[in-house]
């Protein structure tokens, strides 16, 4: 009996050792293909769906991947529902009884819509990922907090507006955002477009925190000095596509900047993979006209990208950094004499 136990523990130890903690070495093709096989599957039987997605996969990270990918590519975002909820939540902000009542009735509607039409808003995504994961014995939970986007109120958050996931794999917690990964809302007609963004899967917490500020600070998964909420409100506006191309954003570290005419501004980023440097551009809007400009200097050192730019005239400039057509990050520059 003892020998058997010893043998088993050896086996497990070997397995643990063989599992790469850096998941870059794991090929997610098989997990992704499971998500594809069950594309279109319904949400009426979660245990079966979870079982189908995960039972052929070897590791927890692959199982989690299959679930996450399935949710991101099968559940669509309901903008009408989002707006309705937002309006009510703002209305009842100071009346917790009414807010609770609204939340209770809306929850029913949301889950019924999710069950029947696979449409939801972000709590629904995060909820579904954590629920399917738990059915596959993966420790996954929802994290509530503040999501910073170009269209949420930039300097004034009334209440938490976003949910995402923390998942424990090989005894370590990771962060993912299935809502932002699934696609985007069209800026004009508010329709939802599936457009899977892999950059929000097990994202670097240091980068993630620039756009996701959890209510409970421990879910930042950071050590040492934690960024304050005030500094979060001053961050540049990063878009979902930032996660597609970058692993870290360094400078300028504020949205609003005041500089002198002809002063050199340095933009520093870490890239996820090498890019064609010709695709780099700025779109600059001075309130009257919009121009496309190239940086005055571009330096690429392995994956560290450093750009420089100077403004020749005083003014107030909304400045957007783009790679190809992908909007990455926005800043404003007040240029003085």
């Amino acid at each position, binding site marked *: 009996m003892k020998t058997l136990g010893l043998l088993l523990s050896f086996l497990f130890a070997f397995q643990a050792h063989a599992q790469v903690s850096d998941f870059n070495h794991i090929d997610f093709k098989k997990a992704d293909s499971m998500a594809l096989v069950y594309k279109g599957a319904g949400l009426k039987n979660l245990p079966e769906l979870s079982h189908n997605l995960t039972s052929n996969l070897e590791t927890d990270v692959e199982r989690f991947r299959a679930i996450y990918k399935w949710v991101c590519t099968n559940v669509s975002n309901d903008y009408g529902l989002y707006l309705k*909820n937002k309006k009510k939540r703002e209305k009842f902000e100071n009346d917790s009884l009414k807010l609770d009542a609204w939340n209770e009735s809306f929850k029913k509607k*949301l*889950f019924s819509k999710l069950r029947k039409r696979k449409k939801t808003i972000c*709590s*629904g995504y995060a909820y579904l990922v954590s629920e399917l994961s738990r059915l596959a014995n993966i420790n996954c939970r929802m994290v509530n907090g503040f999501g910073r*986007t*170009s269209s949420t109120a930039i300097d004034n958050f009334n209440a938490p507006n*976003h949910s995402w996931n923390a998942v424990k794999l090989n005894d370590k917690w990771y962060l993912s955002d299935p809502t932002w990964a699934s696609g985007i809302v069209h800026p004009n007609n508010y329709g939802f477009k599936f457009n899977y963004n892999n950059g929000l899967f097990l994202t670097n917490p240091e980068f993630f925190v620039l756009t996701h500020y959890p209510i409970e600070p421990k879910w930042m998964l950071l050590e040492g000095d934690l960024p304050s909420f005030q500094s979060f409100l001053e961050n540049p506006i990063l*878009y979902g596509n930032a996660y597609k191309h970058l692993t870290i954003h360094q400078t300028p570290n504020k949205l609003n900047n005041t500089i002198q005419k002809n002063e050199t501004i340095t933009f520093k980023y870490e890239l996820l993979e090498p890019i064609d440097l010709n695709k780099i551009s700025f779109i600059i809007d001075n309130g009257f006209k919009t121009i496309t400009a190239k940086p005055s200097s571009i330096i690429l050192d392995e994956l560290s990208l450093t750009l420089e730019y100077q403004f020749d005239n005083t003014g107030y400039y909304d400045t957007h950094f783009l790679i190809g057509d992908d909007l990455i990050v926005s800043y404003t520059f007040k240029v003085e004499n």
Partner: protein
Amino acid sequence: MKTHVTLTQNRANLITSRMIQHLIFGLFMIATLTFNSLSAQTQTSSNTEINVKGMVSDEYGPLTGVNIALKGSNVGAITDSDGTFIFPQALKPNDVLIFSYLGYETRRVKIKADTNFINLQLVSEAIDIVGALASDKPYKSKRSF
């Protein structure tokens, strides 16, 4: 002197607790064996398996469409419009049924030899519904000239 007494006492304690451990383990083994043979006997003699029926509701009444899955398999049932279900496969003691319904906390129920009817009330998930969407709309500052 005092220390010495405590030491021996500790050792005595240790010995007794070891003995108790062994005793419990032994009893446990015997119990398991007996139960196993007992249940084996009942199964072979009367040829009964555990057929499970049940009803699932929430605080307002019966729930339709609740999934009941046998843990580790792909066999399952769904509750009818009156919240009732009949599990399609005969079960064994210690089988676990997973009850899941979107928006409600998932419950696991262990089957015992005398489980024939499961009456379960699900509790709705305590979550706040919020949502910020990813947007590709370029940021526009509110300038004051």
